[in-house]
């Protein structure tokens, strides 16, 4: 691969190691460590798990620092530190900054109730945003997609019409399954039962359709081990043999 040329030589305990090769070995070792979980919990998996938590939490902190804290807060208040030093400071970000500080009141038991303000703000904000979004993408779009000709008249192919009719009945029956305020007996009992059948078909289809994608992930790991890591091993072996 192209990275080979760019990587640096590291010398550890007298052994000269290429950072690219070292990375490949590390990747392979961690791949095996996680796969070992399939056999059962073991120290190797436990190590990889704790490493994973530490590295990923650290990564999260770095990303939040660089993509939120710096550009949204610090560079706004102190533009001379940022990429556009000429810009005027924007003190309005002190409002969310203050709300954020209230979040930290959690550390002081006497004042921890202050953290309710930022939580109320965030939860309220996203609750509000979700209402029109849900109407648009989940109600209107889906409703319109269901409104199709259901009889083979006026030049509509009967097979297509029948399929659309199945969708219409399926959606209605599924909705009746979710009906809460009446016992599921009589007609409601029948429709909700049919609704469950449709749900099961949907779940079966979802399951079967995902198998391939999940196997591809494993294939990806196998390809890494066979075509990226193995060649490096053979090179190493050859070097030692000579």
């Amino acid at each position: 691969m192209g990275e080979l040329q760019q990587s640096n030589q590291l010398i550890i305990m007298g052994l000269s190691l290429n950072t690219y090769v070292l990375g490949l070995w590390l990747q392979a070792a961690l791949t095996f460590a996680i796969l070992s979980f399939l056999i059962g919990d073991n120290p190797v998996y436990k190590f990889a798990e704790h490493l994973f938590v530490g590295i990923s939490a650290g990564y999260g902190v770095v990303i939040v620092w660089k993509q939120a804290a710096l550009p949204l807060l610090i560079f706004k208040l102190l533009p001379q530190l940022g990429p556009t030093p000429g810009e005027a400071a924007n003190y309005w970000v002190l409002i969310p900054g203050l709300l954020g500080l209230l979040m930290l009141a959690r550390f002081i038991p006497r004042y921890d109730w202050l953290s309710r303000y930022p939580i109320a703000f965030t939860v309220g904000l996203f609750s509000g945003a979700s209402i029109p979004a849900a109407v648009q993408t989940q109600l209107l779009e889906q409703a319109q997609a269901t409104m199709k000709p259901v009889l083979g008249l006026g030049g509509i192919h009967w097979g297509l019409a029948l399929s659309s009719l199945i969708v219409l009945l399926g959606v209605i029956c599924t909705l009746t399954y979710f009906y809460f305020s009446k016992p599921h007996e009589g007609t409601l009992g029948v429709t909700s039962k049919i609704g469950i059948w449709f749900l099961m078909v949907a779940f079966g289809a979802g399951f079967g359709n995902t198998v391939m994608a999940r196997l591809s992930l494993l294939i990806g790991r196998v390809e890494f081990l066979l075509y990226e890591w193995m060649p490096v091993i053979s090179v190493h072996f050859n070097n030692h043999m000579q």
Partner: protein
Amino acid sequence: MAIGFIAGVFMIVQFFVPHAVATQGYELLLDWARIIGAFALVLGIGSLFRTHWDKIRRRRSGYGYNAVTLLSFGLMVWAGILYGTGEGSIGQRLTEVQDGATFEWLFNNVQVPLDATMFALLAFFIASAAYRTFRARNIEATLLLVTAVIVMLGRVPIGEMIYDRMPDVYEWIMQYPAVAGKRGILFGVALGSIATSLRIILGIERSHLGG
């Protein structure tokens, strides 16, 4: 709390207002939420430290693993923020936006393979889940497993060899009956989530605020 009510109502109203003030206000408030999120992460890190440090301090069995977490966390933060690209004073490194080579190396060689392999475990789990639970116990379970098997066959060439119209059957199932069930769920979810959002905005639901 009034602050939640105002934020929620603003978000609903802005959806219907095409004016630049509405869209800018929307982006502004989302930025604010991200700033608050950044502060909240401090709480998260506090909790992380407390959990692992407690175990190390009390020498609970396997505390070495907790040390691994804290050390690797520190390493990543050092590589990403304190060391950065390794150029300039500490103040300059702190405000650097680009990532350093060490940070990228750690990400590519530690986090990426861990992520990918953890994800790849699903290949095994999806097989064992199918084996353990796909039993024709009743009509519902039978429908589930028959659909799954047909769809699986529709995805590989062997399915076509068994029945040459298998891909068409697959296509039909995915486009019609499966869509019906999915759509029913989406309608219900929309109704439930909107009602819950309303309750929160109007302050009828306040248990997330401890009351």
